[in-house]
Every structure is written in structure tokens, then in C-alpha cells.
């Protein structure tokens, strides 16, 4: 009897201890995030005004101006990179999980994707530079000079491995019973993959895409010698283009206080842009989800 109650006491204490440890760990993880975001709001919010969103940068030394060109530029670059990275990544993931399972090709693709995921972003920029910016082929557009196109391609390629591997993993998590149900109805395999398996796995796949998007949204290095930067408003894929991380990088290193201010504001806007984009996608894709759907 005594032994029993001692045992149960120890169990209770262990339970409490583990709970406390878990809470502590959570606090440790969340604190830096909150501090960073708080500091960003503190430093950046005061410089946010209408001009920040509507004006392009003033010449060196002049007060004021905004980052309209960077915001638009980041939008263009991320739009292009998503157009490249999401379809290719999802397509690759579908192949890995559904059609190529166990084949040498699939193993090679999986290995390449994992390696690609670990390649430093500046190397990705160099690759885009070597493939798109440096070769001169006069009759082809986009080649031979710095351009939004080359920057978007560099970012897009960076998105592929993350999207591809999450897609694969999410598809493999779809229960076998669900695939069997579709096959049992006489649905051809390709149709079952696209309409059933992919749809069932879509919440996880969308999360993967958002992670990849958020990651490249803050990338500076791959843009340094591809998109290059542009002090004027541009939306052309064939011209150099400004991006928020590039502009932040330049302003943070500048000697002018006013540009430091703008850099802080830019960093805040960059984070808010990511938050808005992610929430928007979540909202749009969660419409039409039914009661009790898992």
C-alpha cells in the first residue's frame, strides 16, 4: 500500500516536472520571436507613412521617400518564383510519391532535392547569374543582363526542393484506404491521384508552399547579381528590379539615419507582407472546407 502511494506520488511529480519543462521550452522558443517582432515594430512603425508605400527612394542625403518600387519588385519576384517553384515542386512531389516510388529516377530526384535544399542561397544566385545573366544570345529575351526574370528564377529554384519534399510526404500520409476507395470505384489511377489523393493532402502541401514562399521572400543573396536592384519603379521582367531585402541591405549599410529608419520600416513591411500573403492563402483555401472534414 505504502509503496503504491509513493509510486503514484513520484508519478505525479514527474508529470508536473515534464509539464513545467514543456512550458519552459515553449517560452524559450516563443520569446525571441516576440522580441524580434516587437523590436521591429518599435523601430519601424514610426517611419511607416503613406509616402513609404507610394514614393520611390529620394536621392542620397535627402529626407523622405519610400519603398514603393521595392514592394512592387518583391511582389513581381515572388509571383514569378511561385509560378516556377510551386508547379514544378508539386509535380515532382507527385511523381516521387505516386508514380516513381522505388525507381532509380525517383531516388535520384529525392537526393537532388535534398542537396538543393542545402545549397547556400548565394550559390543559387551565382547559378542564375551564370545561366541567365552572363550568356549573350541576342535573339532571346531575358538573357545577357540583370533582370527581374533571373532573380525570379533563382528564387523559384530555391522553392522547388521544399515544395517537392513536403508534397511527397503529405501524399504518402494519405491513408491507403482512401486510394483504394477511389480505385474500387473504377477511377483511373491518374484521376484518383489528382482528384482524391492530392486534394486530401492539400492542407499540408499548401503549408509547404507557404514555408518555401516565406523563406525566399527574405532572401537577399540570390538577388544581388540577378535582380540587382533598381531605384525606380519597374515591373518589367526584362529590367533590373528592386526587392525589399535588397533595399533593406543597402539602406542598413548606408551612413544616413533617415535610410536606417527606412530600412527598419522595410523590414517590418517585409514581415507583414509575408504574414498577409500566408493568411490570404490560408483564408482562400479554407473556404469551402466542410464541417467535420479532416
Amino acid at each position: 500500500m505504502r509503496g503504491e502511494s509513493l509510486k503514484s506520488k513520484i508519478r505525479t511529480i514527474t508529470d508536473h516536472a515534464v509539464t513545467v519543462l514543456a512550458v519552459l521550452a515553449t517560452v524559450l522558443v516563443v520569446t525571441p520571436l516576440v522580441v524580434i517582432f516587437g523590436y521591429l515594430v518599435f523601430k519601424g512603425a514610426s517611419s511607416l507613412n503613406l509616402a513609404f508605400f507610394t514614393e520611390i527612394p529620394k536621392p542620397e542625403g535627402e529626407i523622405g521617400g519610400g519603398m514603393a518600387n521595392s514592394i512592387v519588385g518583391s511582389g513581381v519576384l515572388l509571383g514569378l518564383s511561385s509560378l516556377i517553384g510551386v508547379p514544378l515542386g508539386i509535380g515532382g512531389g507527385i511523381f516521387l510519391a505516386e508514380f516513381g516510388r522505388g525507381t532509380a529516377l525517383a531516388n535520384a530526384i529525392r537526393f537532388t532535392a535534398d542537396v538543393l535544399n542545402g545549397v547556400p542561397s548565394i550559390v543559387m544566385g551565382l547559378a542564375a547569374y551564370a545561366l541567365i545573366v552572363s550568356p549573350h544570345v541576342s535573339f532571346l529575351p531575358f538573357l545577357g543582363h540583370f533582370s527581374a526574370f533571373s532573380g525570379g528564377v533563382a528564387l523559384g529554384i530555391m522553392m522547388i526542393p521544399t515544395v517537392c519534399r513536403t508534397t511527397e510526404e503529405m501524399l504518402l500520409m494519405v491513408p491507403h484506404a482512401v486510394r483504394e476507395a477511389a480505385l474500387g470505384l473504377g477511377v483511373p489511377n491518374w484521376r484518383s491521384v489528382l482528384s482524391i489523393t492530392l486534394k486530401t493532402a492539400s492542407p499540408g502541401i499548401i503549408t509547404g508552399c507557404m514555408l518555401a514562399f516565406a523563406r525566399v521572400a527574405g532572401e537577399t543573396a540570390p538577388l544581388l547579381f540577378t535582380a540587382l536592384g533598381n531605384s525606380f519603379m519597374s515591373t518589367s521582367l526584362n529590367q533590373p528590379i528592386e526587392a525589399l531585402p535588397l533595399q533593406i541591405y543597402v539602406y542598413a549599410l548606408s551612413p544616413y539615419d533617415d535610410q536606417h529608419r527606412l530600412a527598419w520600416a522595410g523590414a517590418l513591411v517585409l514581415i507583414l507582407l509575408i504574414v498577409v500573403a500566408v493568411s490570404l492563402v490560408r483564408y482562400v483555401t479554407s473556404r469551402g472546407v466542410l464541417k467535420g472534414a479532416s
Partner: protein
Amino acid sequence: MGVGIEVNNLNAWYGTNHTLQDITLNIPANHATALIGPSGCGKSTFVRCLNRMHETNPIARVTGSVRVGDLDIYNDAKPVQVRRRIGMVFQRPNPFPTMSIYDNVASGLKLNGYSNRRVLDDIVEKSLKNSALWDEVKDDLKKKSGASLSGGQQQRLCIARALAVDPEVLLMDEPASALDPVSTSKIEDLIFQLKSQYTIVIVTHNMQQAARVAEKTGFFLNGRMVEFDSTHKIFTNPSDKRTEDYITGRFG
């Protein structure tokens, strides 16, 4: 209307494992036929051979012939065509989790390219009525996911989904083994009603269930069919000693 099934010399393998050996039997049209036997005896493999689901496993192999009505399913048809004529209900309810109740029932038609709304509405209603689920779900057809229903309702939803493509044969692989007694008896009532319109083959662990719903019963053991006869005969006066041992609970 249902059609009969003629199975001749059916053999099936998983890898090197010879799971079905020389099965020959005739399953009558518009009756329920039960397959009983201990776990691993090959009865599930057998029904999966009847709609070519067996071969969805890459290491699986089949020889022999199966005629469903006048169709030789291994020589005259592609797997998808076979499966459209032969519906299947699985052991665990497996509604499509992202689809509404309505879409689950309509899925077999929609995924095969059928889209006439009015006809779909009719078929969904008729199928849900046939599976005795209509009254419980008619107000939430498009609002609720198939996965939000209870286990027993989900299984009846899966039956409705199978019926919606108007199959000639309905294969049921232990359709009630994951369900509570009330849901089980609902499924059994359903089988009773459905067998006038469809040929039903039901795999079951539960011998009382076989006795209640089926006219014919086959006893499987170690990949072979030991005995196939009228349910009454199997349960009261089996010709084979092994059948008798099994139904009296001496093994399995």
C-alpha cells in the same frame, strides 16, 4: 440487376506467397454469398480478385479465369472497367474526407466524367435511400463532410457510393467488423434488401452474420476453398470435417 460469377481455377500470389490455390466456384446472381474462414485463409484476397483490386499491389499476381455475367474480367476488360461494374465496400469505412456527403456518393460518377446535375441529384438520393442513410443526412448533404458521420453511417455512405455507379455485383470485405452491434444489424438489414437487385459477396468473420444474410456460404482454409454449399447445409450438416470443426469453434 445482378449477374452470376463463374470462377475457374483461380490462383493468386503475393510475391512468392501462394495465397489462393485452385479456387473454382459459381456465385449465383441476385443472392448473397458469404465467405467464411480463419484470418489469413485467403477470403479477402479472393474477393479482391473478383474486381481486380488484388493487382493494385505491385507484387501481386493472378492466374485463372473469372466471368462476371458474360464478361471475362481478366481477358476482355481493363481493370477500371471491371471495377465500375463491380462495387466494393471495404473493412473500414473509407469516405473521401475532403468531400461532402453528396460528393462522396456522386464521386464514382463525377470522377468518371459524368456531370448532369439533375441526374446526379436523383442518383444520390436514390443511392442514399437504398443504403438507408437518406433520412439521417438529407439536410446536410452538401454541408457536412463524409468524415463527420459516425462509423456506421460512414459505412452506409460507402455502400451508397458503391451503389451510385449502378454495379451488377457488390463485394463486401468484412463490412461490419469495425462497427458496433446496432450499426452491424443495420448493415445486415441492408444486405437483405439489396440482394434482390445485386449479386452480393460478403466476407465475414462472424458466422452468425453469414447464417443471417447469405443463401450460399463458402468455407476457406489456407488458401483453398474447402466447401461451398447452401448456408443451411454448411451450418447444420457440413460434408467436410474441417468445416465442421471450424463452425463448431474448434479452431480459428
